[in-house]
């Protein structure tokens, strides 16, 4: 039985890469649909592994002495990424409807490699292979942010790539120190060992750059020049969540930091707070959402930096909620951008009556990200803050609640500009709204269902 699961694990690791190269054989018109099929298969694989992973069986494969394992933490991250990937591909079938076949093929290819590198990161047991896939994800993001190859876009892609690579390099240095202090590169073997704070700081720099936290956050806001499915990938499914994963994996229950690292929490919290404030003045819908992501990421990292098991559990729930919610919000932003032909929220308005399905999806996702019960974001935030209070960081907890309440301010502001108010001229001229609407509605409904499941 276990052997069967291990085979599943292997296919989960290689399927996206095989699929990515496989769809190059398809004619360009069908490539996104091909990618969708590959991701659906991948989703089925992940779901099949869900139960054994949660039942604390030891699932592993060994390739050339490098171990890949799968436990509950990995499967949560993998399943969420793949699920959102599926919906992004569904969305992309509508979004790229007017693009030439070559562009669609490129998106389908790099998107699958992106998902594949995420699989690699979450399944790696070895720090070196973790680092490799970490960098591979950075490479994909570079190609995807500068998707249309314009000079200005390439500049922004370079900025994202250079920053994350620099951070990852420092993180790699941190890994060598981890090896020095624990004597192993396998995450399984370093359980319950202790490292000094400066090693944590090196690793933390990698997390900060990847997860776009102050002072390395500006690349994420700049990356909003990319086409919408790509930004959804960056913000919701793959890239920035890698940092959260690394933090949760290494410091959730594995390594201990000898010495106080409260500064890490405060830095992340400041990032969260500042991004929340900045989001309130932006008028570009994707930038508002980008700063919102920065803010939520800061919140997650701040909670993880408490090293409290309750907080880690809360962040896992919030990670899922945020991925679903923010993915949906970005896709909604893509639809509104198509409708109004602009990204400026001041030129939008009155969608509430004209597009009820979109309003429903946007509203539910927004409430989930804000943390309004009974949506899943609330339960995540409450657990995380309970963890902070249990660790007696009272003032910190208060600031965290305040920060998460800023979300309410700027997302309701966004809602007010886009959905309320006077109706503006919109064009439904483009085809492809059907799959786009379907994907956002599915995402919002899944959010709601998870929330109701958590209440029950």
């Amino acid at each position, binding site marked *: 039985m276990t052997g069967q699961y291990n085979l599943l694990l292997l296919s989960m690791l290689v399927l996206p890469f095989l699929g990515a190269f496989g769809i190059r054989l398809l004619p360009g018109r069908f490539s996104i649909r091909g990618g969708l099929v590959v991701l659906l298969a991948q989703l089925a694989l992940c779901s099949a592994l869900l139960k054994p992973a949660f039942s604390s069986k030891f699932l592993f494969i060994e390739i050339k002495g490098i171990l890949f394992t799968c436990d509950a933490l990995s499967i949560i991250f993998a399943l969420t990424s793949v699920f959102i990937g599926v919906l992004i591909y569904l969305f992309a079938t509508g979004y790229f409807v007017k693009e030439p076949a070559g562009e669609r093929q490129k998106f389908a290819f790099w998107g699958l490699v992106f998902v594949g590198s995420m699989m690699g990161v979450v399944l790696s047991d070895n720090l070196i292979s973790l680092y490799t896939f970490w960098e591979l994800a950075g490479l994909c993001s570079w190609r995807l942010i500068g998707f249309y190859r314009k000079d200005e876009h390439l500049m922004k892609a370079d900025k994202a790539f250079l920053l994350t690579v620099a951070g990852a390099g420092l993180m790699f240095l941190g890994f060598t120190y981890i090896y020095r202090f624990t004597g192993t590169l396998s995450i399984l073997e370093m359980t319950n060992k202790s490292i000094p704070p400066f090693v944590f700081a090196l690793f933390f720099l990698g997390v900060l750059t990847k997860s776009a936290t102050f002072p390395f956050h500006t690349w994420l806001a700049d990356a909003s020049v990319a086409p919408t499915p790509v930004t959804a990938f960056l913000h919701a499914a793959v890239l920035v969540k890698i940092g959260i994963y690394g933090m949760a994996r290494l410091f959730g229950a594995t390594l201990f930091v000898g010495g106080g690292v409260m500064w890490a929490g405060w830095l992340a919290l400041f990032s969260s707070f500042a991004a929340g404030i900045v989001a309130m003045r932006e008028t570009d819908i994707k930038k508002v959402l980008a700063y919102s992501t920065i803010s939520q990421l800061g919140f997650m990292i701040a909670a993880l930096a408490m090293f409290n098991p309750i907080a880690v559990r809360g962040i896992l729930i919030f990670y899922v909620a945020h991925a679903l919610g923010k993915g949906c919000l970005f896709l909604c932003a893509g639809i509104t951008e198509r409708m109004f032909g602009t990204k400026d929220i001041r030129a939008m308005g009155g969608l509430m009556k004209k597009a009820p399905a979109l309003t429903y999806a946007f509203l539910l996702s927004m409430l989930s990200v804000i943390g309004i019960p*009974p949506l899943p974001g609330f339960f995540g935030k409450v657990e995380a803050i309970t963890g902070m209070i249990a660790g007696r960081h009272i003032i910190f907890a208060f600031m965290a609640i305040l920060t998460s309440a800023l979300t309410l301010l700027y997302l309701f502001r966004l809602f007010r500009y886009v959905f309320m108010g006077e109706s503006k001229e919109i064009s439904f001229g483009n085809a492809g709204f059907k799959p786009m609407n379907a994907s956002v509605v599915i995402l919002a409904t899944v959010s709601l269902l998870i929330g109701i499941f958590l209440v029950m």
Partner: protein
Amino acid sequence: MDVRVWFLPVAVSFATAFLHVVFCKAGRHFRKWLSLAGGIAVAAGCFYSMYVNYMYLSSGQVMSLLFATLISTISLFSVSYSQWYNPEDNFVYDSLLFLFIGAMNGVVLSHSLIALYVYWEIMAVASFFLVLFTDTEEARRAAFKYIIMTGAGSVFLLFSILGIWLIEENIFWKHLFFFSMLIGTGIKAGIFPLHTWLPDAHPAAPTPVSSMLSGVMIKTGIYAMIRFYFVLFKPSWSIGWETILILIGVITLLGGVFLALVQHDIKRLLAYHSISQIGYIMLGIACGTSIGLVGALYHVINHAIFKSLLFLGAGVLIKATGSRELGNYGGLARKLPLTFGVMTVAALSISGVPPFNGFVSKWLIYQALLSKGGEIAVVALAAALLGSVLTLASFIKVLNDSFMGVKKAEISKQGLESSPFMNMPMVLLAAGCLLFGLFPGVVTERFLFPALGEYVPLNIELIKTASLYGWLALAVFCLLFIFGRNWMRKFRKTEPFVGGEIFTAEETAFDGSHFYGTIKEIGPIKRFYSAESTGKLDIYAIAGKILPGVNRVFHNAAVRAVDSVYARGSVILNLAVKKLKLLQNGLLARYIVWLFAGIIFLMEVIRR
């Protein structure tokens, strides 16, 4: 007790909300009866729990049920009324209304604080959309303000809920969490500096919704405050806070009533009166004694009754004239006799005139302040009495402007005061005003005392005295009516002497907007009014002014500064790369030199 029965009101409300969505195409007639059946079932669920399982409940549960019964009864009336008020067919409205009712019931029935918070937020979102419902510019502004302020309140409430298990550990944290609880519940209840969403949201909402917002929703804040203060923190601990609470009560009371005096929008006026009545309830709570708590709870019930009645009456006026301005009403008593009657009863109740219910609860609160003693309590008592008088003055203005005097608006009697959906709630509520004033002993002993637990007062005579005054007042009214009628007839009616000039009726009439206009000119109060009208008292407006500056600071610090560092860095990097490029000039000789230098260096390293 059985959880399924306990949460019956919540489940039934949510189910009704869901059914409204399912049967959205079923037509107005079907969904009208669905709404009514839902409303009745919710109220019946509460009464069922109240009567069947009464003996087995703890005092906290009785208090929950007390609030739930109040909420579901007032909601039933509002639901019935809105069948008349909103004739257009809209399932979203009905659905939201029941979501709102269910969430309010959930707040008061929850066993755990987290569940309370969950329902609290559902309530906030549902009521946000109800305030937004008319979708005018005013409604959008008010709804946005409401959700922002109530969200800020939720922050403090959540902080307090999550940290409350720490209160035994450290006195500093206890104070911190108490303060946070006070802000969190106070924003919902509308205590004074935090009240500013209330006078905007109440007028903007559809009238049945305003009656629920003002009648029962702000009471959920009071409910949470009472449960926190009396059960978790215990008033015996709060040595410094008692004075602060009394001061908050006094400021809320006087601030609300002074602002109400000069309003000319009827719903806004009623909203300010809600704030003022919350001040009375706060005074009762602040005493921290059993008699104060009884008074506060009694006033919660009474305020729900008369304030929702006032709003429903105002709805009739708005429906009849199409305006919310008091100046546009006038002389409507003959056209709307029922509304005139019930509004008068409600106005007398809110002003605390015996034998109506407002008198009893205010009496209890005065008694609590008297037994409390101390200078601050005496000041509070004086303020409460003054507030009561000013309330009466304000409602004289309302009644005069809308029902007496010159008729200004032509109204058609078509469909007004004929629908039982709208008649029944108003008459029942007016009857409630009288009954709760005449039989306070029954109410307190049957409902309030079981809810108090350790706070049951020993001195029941006070309540009996209040009812005595009530009956006395009723007797005086009756006597006046019987004997006074003949006496009144002896007066001679004549035209007023105007010195030869001929005025039209419009010229001699008082206008609603000028009625108490002169009060704005009185010394210290003048500054208060000018501060209010320029938004200096509105924390939302102040925050709105500060926010752009804060935004700019953070944008400069967190975005522009960081970006300029990166830009500087990339320039330096480019320069460095250019310098390095000089090494690669393509001349073989240069490369050979470097090669040899490298080899020598390596050999030197190896040699050592």
